[in-house]
């Protein structure tokens, strides 16, 4: 049967025990986040208890400074953070793949132009970019998605371009040229499918990075704005020493969730890299 396909990748993937655990954790976290409206006990934006109450049987993770249920806020926050991470990854991957394909395949002045633009974006301190962008656009969910999407594509572009350059020299592409096959066929039927695997792996790290970036920006107040909860702006509420030392339920769960998400995604990405590599046979 098709042994280079999905089943073989799954077989190789399942040999990484930590990655398997990560994948299960990730599925649970994503599942809980997606189903937040169903599983959350309270509204994430309306006060339902006393202020900054410690965890009890009604509010498992306590309440925040204005009496909102922390568990519900956390579930909705994970939802927002995953959405930001996912959309930012989709945007940067799309931009990166298109520019990388064009740059690598056509070469010449197009390549030079795209690559200098890529280097420019890469060398630009993105916090500055975000500050400027936040000053121009209204900070919020979609501006943070677009900003992060625009910050992370250069890595994808470089990866795809490098791949295209080496694929262009392979004999199967040369034999297509010799067979008079059109450019669009060579680009989309021969080269693109062979870059999907490395791009997917790279995208997982962009995903993790975007979640971290969202948390950092929202923590600084430049990202997702309250009352919409995100993992970053939950941490934003925990800036004073009294809260840090005396009320850990206000920040520890969000912090732990960020760590778990990022580690899981990275471990899954690493295992995927090994599983997809055809040199790891068997």
């Amino acid at each position, binding site marked *: 049967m*098709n042994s*280079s396909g999905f089943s073989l990748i799954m077989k190789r993937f399942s040999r990484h025990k930590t990655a398997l655990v990560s994948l299960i954790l990730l599925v649970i976290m994503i599942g809980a986040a997606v189903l937040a409206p169903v599983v959350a006990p309270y509204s994430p934006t309306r006060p339902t208890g006393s202020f900054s109450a410690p965890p009890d049987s009604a509010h498992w993770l306590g309440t925040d400074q204005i009496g909102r249920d922390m568990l519900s806020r956390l579930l909705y926050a994970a939802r927002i953070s995953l959405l930001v991470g996912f959309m930012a990854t989709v945007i940067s991957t799309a931009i990166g793949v298109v520019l990388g394909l064009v740059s690598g395949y056509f070469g010449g002045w197009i390549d030079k132009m795209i690559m200098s633009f890529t280097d420019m974006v890469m060398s630009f301190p993105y916090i500055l970019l975000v500050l400027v962008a936040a000053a121009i656009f209204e900070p919020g969910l979609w501006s943070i998605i677009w900003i992060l999407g625009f910050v992370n594509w250069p890595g994808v572009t470089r990866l795809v371009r490098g791949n295209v350059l080496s694929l262009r020299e392979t004999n199967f592409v040369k034999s297509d040229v010799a067979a*008079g096959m059109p450019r669009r066929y060579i680009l989309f039927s021969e080269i693109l499918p062979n870059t999907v695997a490395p791009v997917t792996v790279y995208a997982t790290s962009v995903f993790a990075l975007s979640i971290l970036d969202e948390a950092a920006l929202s923590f600084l107040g430049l990202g997702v704005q309250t009352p919409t909860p995100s993992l970053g702006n939950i941490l934003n509420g925990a800036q004073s020493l009294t809260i840090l030392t005396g009320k850990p339920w206000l920040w520890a769960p969000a912090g732990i969730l960020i760590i778990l998400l990022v580690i899981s995604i990275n471990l899954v990405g690493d295992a995927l890299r090994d599983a997809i590599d055809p040199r790891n046979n068997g």
Partner: protein
Amino acid sequence: MAHDTPIMEVRNLTKHYRAGGAGLRHAVTKAVDGIDLSLRAGETFGIVGESGCGKSTVARLMMGLEAPTSGEVYFRGERIDNMPESRKRLLRPKFQMVFQDSGSSLNPRKRVMDILAEPMLYHGKAGRAEVLRRVDELLEQVGLPSAAKTRYPHEFSGGQKQRICIAKALSLGPELIVLDEPVSALDVSVQAQILNLLKDLQEELKLTYLFIGHGLGAVRYVSSRIAVMYMGKIVETGGADELFRHPAHPYTQALLDAAPVADYSLRNRPRIALRGEAGGMAPAGGCPFRDRCPHARPVCAEMTVSLEPVPGGEGRLSACPFGR
């Protein structure tokens, strides 16, 4: 088509590469340096030479995978090296190529049937309805079972992959196939199978081959005419048997002497052993082979080298005036 029109012809074909490096800014590697070739319909023309002599570059130039620095390439009398790709695309099915490394000649993510069918569909060599039958036919022609079509390239051995590559080259109904060291990467026993397959296919389909190799045995086995290349130039050309029996150029002699011989009584025959390696820079002016040639004389550094008929050599040409 006139019988005497060569199927493919190159005139004064030249390819120079700019050698990189800051200090060598203007250094030029003459990969192919003014070559004339003419392939007759139905023959197998062999090109031999050491690694780096430019023989594969000749193949790529003829196939239009690279643009020549100067010179012309003709297919059936029509000049193709400067033809726009949109027009050339329609001619390309007529001349196909098989590469040395069969492993990288097949897209690892495609099944054999997709690899074979897609070019045929694009060029209208087969419709959707009949293309699978045509794939079966091609697989049978190259000696593979029909079940191979649903498999992926990595499931095959080197020899089988080369058969798939040959099937792919055949799929568009070519008149000429350029074989760039098609068996060099294979086991000796598999080499023989592939060479025999190529010979059978040639007979069956009236193909013309340009066979490029560095193994003299294989080239001699399939070729009717041969050109010997050294540092981008043809140093000797002529009928295969004649050339192998009485080499006129010291380089041809040396290549022959370097090949192992099964006959034990010939073990201690007088031989020319080559010193050094081809590649790098040819000595400026004169004969490019003179610094490795056992018969080199002072005049070799001064003379203009050109291919001249060998006396009594039945149309054979040699670049060495002192040929024996």
